[in-house]
């Protein structure tokens, strides 16, 4: 991969299975770990069977979106009148577990981290729900309409103290974050641009829980924004910011960090082909994601496991893989402690990801979480037990099922001695099959390798 990182032309060319890089359980599991939150072993095996193109179709299919959304509607309606936004976080976790449109949900989580808004400050479930729905409806669409909407989004403007925006003393906060965090990245604008952009947003305000444009408070004088002159409205200003050359680069880089590699320095040259695709397609996110997730770089041996599992990926992934129910209220407390509860990002920059997920406390917390989930009562498993969920039977040789489990759920090879340890736990005397399977899952979950995605 070292070569591909320095070969932008080759890196994003479509990958095809070869004898050296076959479409097998390892690569199917890799694709689905990145594109989905987690996948039962049966489905992984059937993806190997049906082949690579069919699995890509599965990943990008939105066929079941409408019926699933309809099935969630009643609950969402009830939630929007709830006073406690924590319930909304629980609802979102449930959605992640249940939705058949996994990539859409994961990309929505990506955008939530990008346009990070914290419910603790907004304290308005209806506004938060609306924001998440907005992000979901544009997550795989086009970037400009998403940003235009976010710029008028009630939760966002409350979060960034921008409910009021008077022409005499414009509030700089939203203007700053739009350029620094949402579109351009640091270094591509000046403090003067922030002040000018803030003037374009004057008159944008929240009244009684709704966005409105107060034309008496809009500064109609000329502004000079990023080298352009004119009496720009807020909307025009957003358009100008979005069409700076660095926006596409900034977004493409962030997508690669989230879906491909979060511990590598990514050169401008490597990112440029994706940035060009964004520019040339009106920022078509789905098409760009497809380029990314079908690329040679994506399937390169050294890309597999070169990311850290976020706490949500880990927890929701395990629930989905084991097809097990869990008290999501309790889970939300644990995720908060692990630093990754949806709707509660640490600040407007969102979650940094990568190494930031791992420290002494979070390692212990992650291991405790795997233990808790693996040791649920049998009736919580929709297949009846943890062994059935993982297709393990009393007569199956532990050598076989332990290895298959590791191949499906650990991105990089485990040391030989660790494999022996797992095998010992898997064949332990005086333990029931379910206990042994739970022991193996837990010990596997406590390896450094399991933390990789």
């Amino acid at each position, binding site marked *: 991969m070292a070569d591909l990182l320095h070969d932008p032309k080759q890196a994003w060319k479509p990958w095809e299975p070869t004898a050296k890089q076959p479409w097998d359980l390892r690569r199917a599991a890799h694709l689905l770990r990145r594109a989905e939150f987690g996948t039962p072993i049966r489905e992984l095996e059937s993806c190997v069977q049906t082949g690579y193109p069919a699995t890509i179709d599965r990943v990008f299919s939105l066929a079941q979106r409408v019926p699933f959304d309809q099935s969630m509607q009643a609950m969402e309606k009830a939630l929007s009148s709830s006073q406690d936004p924590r319930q909304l976080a629980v609802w979102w976790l449930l959605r992640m577990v249940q939705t058949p449109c996994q990539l859409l949900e994961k990309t929505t989580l990506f955008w939530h981290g990008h346009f990070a808004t914290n419910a603790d400050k907004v304290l308005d479930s209806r506004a938060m729900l609306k924001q998440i729905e907005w992000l979901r409806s544009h997550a795989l669409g086009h970037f400009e309409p998403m940003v235009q909407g976010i710029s008028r989004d009630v939760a966002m403007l409350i979060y960034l103290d921008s*409910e009021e925006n008077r022409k005499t003393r414009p509030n700089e906060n939203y203007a700053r974050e739009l350029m620094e965090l949402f579109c351009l990245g640091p270094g591509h604008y000046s403090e003067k641009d922030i002040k000018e952009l803030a003037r374009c947003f004057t008159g944008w305000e929240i009244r009684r829980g709704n966005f409105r444009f107060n034309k008496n408070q809009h500064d109609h004088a000329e502004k000079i924004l990023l080298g352009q002159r004119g009496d720009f409205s807020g909307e025009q200003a957003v358009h100008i910011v979005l069409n700076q050359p660095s926006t596409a680069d900034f977004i493409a880089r962030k997508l690669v960090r989230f879906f491909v590699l979060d511990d590598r320095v990514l050169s401008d040259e490597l990112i440029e082909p994706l940035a060009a695709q964004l520019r040339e397609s009106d920022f078509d996110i789905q098409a760009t994601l497809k380029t990314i997730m079908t690329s040679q770089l994506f399937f390169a041996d050294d890309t597999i496991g070169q990311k*850290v599992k976020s706490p949500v990926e880990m927890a929701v992934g395990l629930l989905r893989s084991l097809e097990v129910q869990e008290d999501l209220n309790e889970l939300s407390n644990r995720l908060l402690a692990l630093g990754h509860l949806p709707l509660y990002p640490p600040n407007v920059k969102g979650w940094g990801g990568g190494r930031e997920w791992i420290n002494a*406390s979070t390692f212990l917390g992650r291991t405790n979480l795997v233990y808790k989930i693996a040791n649920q009562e049998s009736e919580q498993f929709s297949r009846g037990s943890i062994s059935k969920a993982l297709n393990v039977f009393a007569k199956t040789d532990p050598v076989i099922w332990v290895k298959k489990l590791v191949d499906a759920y650990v991105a990089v090879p485990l040391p030989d001695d660790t494999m022996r340890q797992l095998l010992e736990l898997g064949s332990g005397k005086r333990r029931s099959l379910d206990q042994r399977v739970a022991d193996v899952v837990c010990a596997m979950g406590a390896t450094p390798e399991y933390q*990789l995605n």
Partner: protein
Amino acid sequence: MFTRRKMIQATFGSAALITAGTAAPPFLWGASRQASQKSDEKILVVIQLSGGNDGLNTVIPYANDEYYRNRFTLAVEKSQVAKIDDEIGWHPALNGFARLLDDGQLAVVQGVGYPNPNRSHFESMDLWHTAHQNTKEFPRGWLGRCVDEHLSGELPAIHYGGEKQPLALTTRTKPVASIQSLDQFRLRLGEHRPLSLGIAKNLEQQREHRHELLGFIHENASMAMTTSQKLESILSTGDAMKTYPETTLGKKLAAVAQLIESGLPTRIYYVTHDGFDTHANQAAAHAALLQQLGDATQAFHEDLKNKGHAERTLLMTFSEFGRRVRENASRGTDHGTAAPLFLAGGRLKAGPLNQHPDLLDLEQGDLKHNIDYRSVYATVLEDWLGVESTEILGQPFKKLNLFI
């Protein structure tokens, strides 16, 4: 990489150290505990004020009309200010700091900042964390460099809190422990001993050298195991909180005091106090934050004094920037530049070290700094922790006259 491996091998390689759930404390630990209890090694406690603390409403230039002109709704009335001298005084919520100053335990460094100020939270915080020495490929913090180059032994630094580990503590050779809370900091894996033992044993296996990310996780995992066992064996639960305010910061500092008292050889503790990004309706929120800061700090100092650690413990606050001199339309303040920094405990020269920045000599509406924060770092590193600062900070900085 090689040195890091060797270090890990040396630190965690011993099977005797990683025995999950044994009642007897590992022998190595017993030794280091004994040694450190006798020592009077100096300790630094950093409190990061996240969000950009409004320095002007912290140390208030109450004698200056410019202050009242710019802070038309947010100014603290002269009569409310707890006066330090003829020009400046405390925000009334900072009575904790006022008392520390009265006891000769607090120093104020005014107008701390750096040239070409960056007004982005994240960029400016990174500058403070790295002492302006960030590289994309190997980011490392100023305290991390201090740990790497100068502090040996176990647990040289501890970050106490649930947020991500601050970049200031990022090391290259050995990871720094983040502890979210003392009572959560342990494995809970039921009664089946072979499972806990197996997990501990798995962490002893060597990992492939070239997978750096895996190495990082492995080091943190090993350290988590040994540290959690250690803490379990030395910490007594009880009335540690009794004399502290029931606030997040109060709880954090109570835990830090407990860790210091436990005899850990740790030299650096790091906690954060978040919420200072006061763009709107600042008055009440800011007062509450200052109240929490002053009260917790004061309780911490009292506690350490009773336990006999006050003389060897220095506390330092900082924030990524101050705020704009003129308040905004939302009864708040936008991102600014220079602000005061506080040190407490230790053997400080108490009181304000220097003049308040000039309110008439502004740059883009912001205060000009009169002391570079790296001068404070250099002083703390050399005169307190006793380590050479030039390499850590990239260049020599003029030291301040902070200590007796």
